[in-house]
């Protein structure tokens, strides 16, 4: 206490920043959500958006806001939040800033199952076939990882299993594209693999939401153990962490949340790496505390990227996943090059 009293600035300054982080991000998200409703192929002035929100305005405006722009923006936010949360949690678990659902093969497996449902025309039977398939794919990968997590002590092994899963899913997807029965299903598959939140409805969101909420709840309830893992697995067990349960809960939570995000938008990479990386310094590098801000920030980033996708003039609309990868992949390489050898 004596040091805190003798140097009050040191003690107070960071805590203000830390406390302000979540409100600041929340305000940013609300602004971005509102901006998403204003901007698009035909910009709506703010007064008409407000009117549409509260049931006034004409039918056309209300349709644009409530059926097109708001669900789309909300989908972008939820997908980003799910990926940011999963990324932050997996990074805490694996003690590696490069971990994210993509690295563990969860995104790829979910995409594979979604592509599978397109290939076999299951989507024609029910609009729910594709989202369900994505979640089954993510849970399949998750179950395999959870099983491996029980048997192995090594994080490297888990990452290698993820790499294997990703490659295998990628190979099967290429095979299906190779054998695609007609150009229409090929176009559908490519659309899916590129990742987008265009034309999403509240129905689509409603279907992904239960899985997303379940995954987020598991991750948030088990986040305290991620702090202990900062010390390494052996020392984390030493301070009283149940390592096995922690691994299972984090992998399961991230699997559910990621599956829900793939169900909503297809595969969108790197936001799960970039957001937690930028947030971490503001949460004193504590993985547990970085979860909620990372989710909000990743949601904000994807909403902004989606606005960009809509207003950039181009012949066919850019895909959100493409833009996210164009911005995220260089950031990934940069983060990787910052790593020091000491951190294996």
């Amino acid at each position: 206490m004596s040091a805190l009293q003798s140097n009050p600035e040191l003690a107070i300054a960071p805590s203000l920043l830390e406390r302000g982080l979540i409100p600041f991000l929340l305000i940013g998200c609300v602004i971005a959500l509102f901006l998403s409703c204003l901007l698009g192929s035909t910009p709506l002035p703010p007064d008409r958006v407000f009117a549409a929100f509260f049931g006034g305005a004409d039918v056309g405006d209300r349709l644009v806001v409530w059926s097109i722009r708001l669900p789309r923006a909300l989908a972008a936010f939820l997908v980003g939040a799910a990926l940011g949360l999963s990324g932050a949690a997996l990074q805490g678990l694996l003690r590696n800033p490069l971990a994210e659902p993509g690295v563990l093969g969860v995104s790829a497996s979910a995409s594979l199952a979604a592509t599978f449902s397109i290939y076999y025309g299951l989507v024609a039977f029910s609009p729910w076939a594709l989202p369900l398939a994505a979640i089954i794919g993510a849970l399949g990968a998750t179950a395999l990882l959870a099983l491996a997590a029980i048997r192995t002590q090594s994080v490297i092994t888990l990452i290698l299993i993820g790499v294997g899963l990703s490659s295998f899913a990628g190979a099967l997807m290429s095979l299906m594209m190779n054998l695609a029965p007609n150009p229409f299903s090929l176009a559908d598959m490519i659309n899916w693999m590129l990742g987008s939140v265009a034309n999403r409805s509240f129905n689509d969101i409603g279907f992904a939401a239960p899985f997303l909420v379940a995954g987020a709840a598991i991750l948030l309830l088990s986040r305290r153990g991620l702090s202990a893992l900062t010390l390494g697995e052996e020392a984390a067990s030493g301070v009283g962490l149940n390592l096995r349960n922690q691994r299972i809960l984090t992998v399961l939570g991230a699997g559910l949340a990621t599956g829900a995000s793939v169900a909503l938008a297809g595969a969108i990479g790197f936001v799960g790496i970039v957001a937690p990386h930028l947030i971490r310094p503001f949460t004193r590098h504590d993985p547990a505390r970085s979860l909620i801000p990372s989710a909000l920030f990743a949601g904000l980033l994807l909403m902004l990227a989606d606005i960009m996708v809509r207003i950039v003039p181009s012949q066919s609309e850019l895909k959100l996943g493409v833009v996210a990868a164009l911005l995220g992949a260089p950031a990934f390489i940069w983060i990787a090059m910052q790593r020091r050898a000491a951190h294996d």
Partner: protein
Amino acid sequence: MTSLRISDLSIRAKQTVLVDRASTELKTGELVVLLGPNGAGKTSLIRGALGLIKPASGASELDGRAVASLSPTERAQLISYLPQIRPLAWPNRVRDVVALGRFSHGATIGRLSAEDRAAVDTAISACDLTHLQDRSADTLSGGELARMHCARAFAANAPLLVADEPIAALDPRHQFRILDLIKSYVDQGGGALLVLHDIELAARYASRLIWMKDGRIVADGSVEETLSADRLAEVYGVSATVSDTRIIMDGAL
């Protein structure tokens, strides 16, 4: 009085016997040093005793309750464990790392209860880290890092401490400082089991020495009873002259 009792503990990895029917005890009020050459099974014995690996046979009990039946939290409240020091995953602040020692008490770092905060403050000042507590841990020297990990272990306020090579790679002054910290922990009623490679320091600080070779405990007793030139030859394969707690090593046998 808290005690960790190990009886007939054997640990195997596939066909290899890492620990062979080891029996010993650690009680509050004593500073026990576990000695033995590389590969003697010291770390395996510790991990088995703490229930971090499953023993092939035998038992390890904390205050009469099987360690395996305790939850990790219950165990951590009774024994602090300092494994060989590994780099931290993130550049956390020193104070936050020390606060992780309160994990078994339900502490969330960043939102410590008054009791947790008091324990962390006491540990930080005991380990002379007050001026460093807001520094990022990746800016500390080796000696400062070792002190930080000691403070983390002390912050748990557990009656027993098990530390695996807590003074490896430290300069002589820091070796003394860390052992002095552990000694004062023991003087205040704690019990410590340390793995050391410096036999002379072990002899100076230990109230008891446990000698291990090839997975077996070959001697367990006071320094006077167990430290001899013959023992050093038998356990470490070195020729040495021993007078009181002074040891002069002449070379490998």
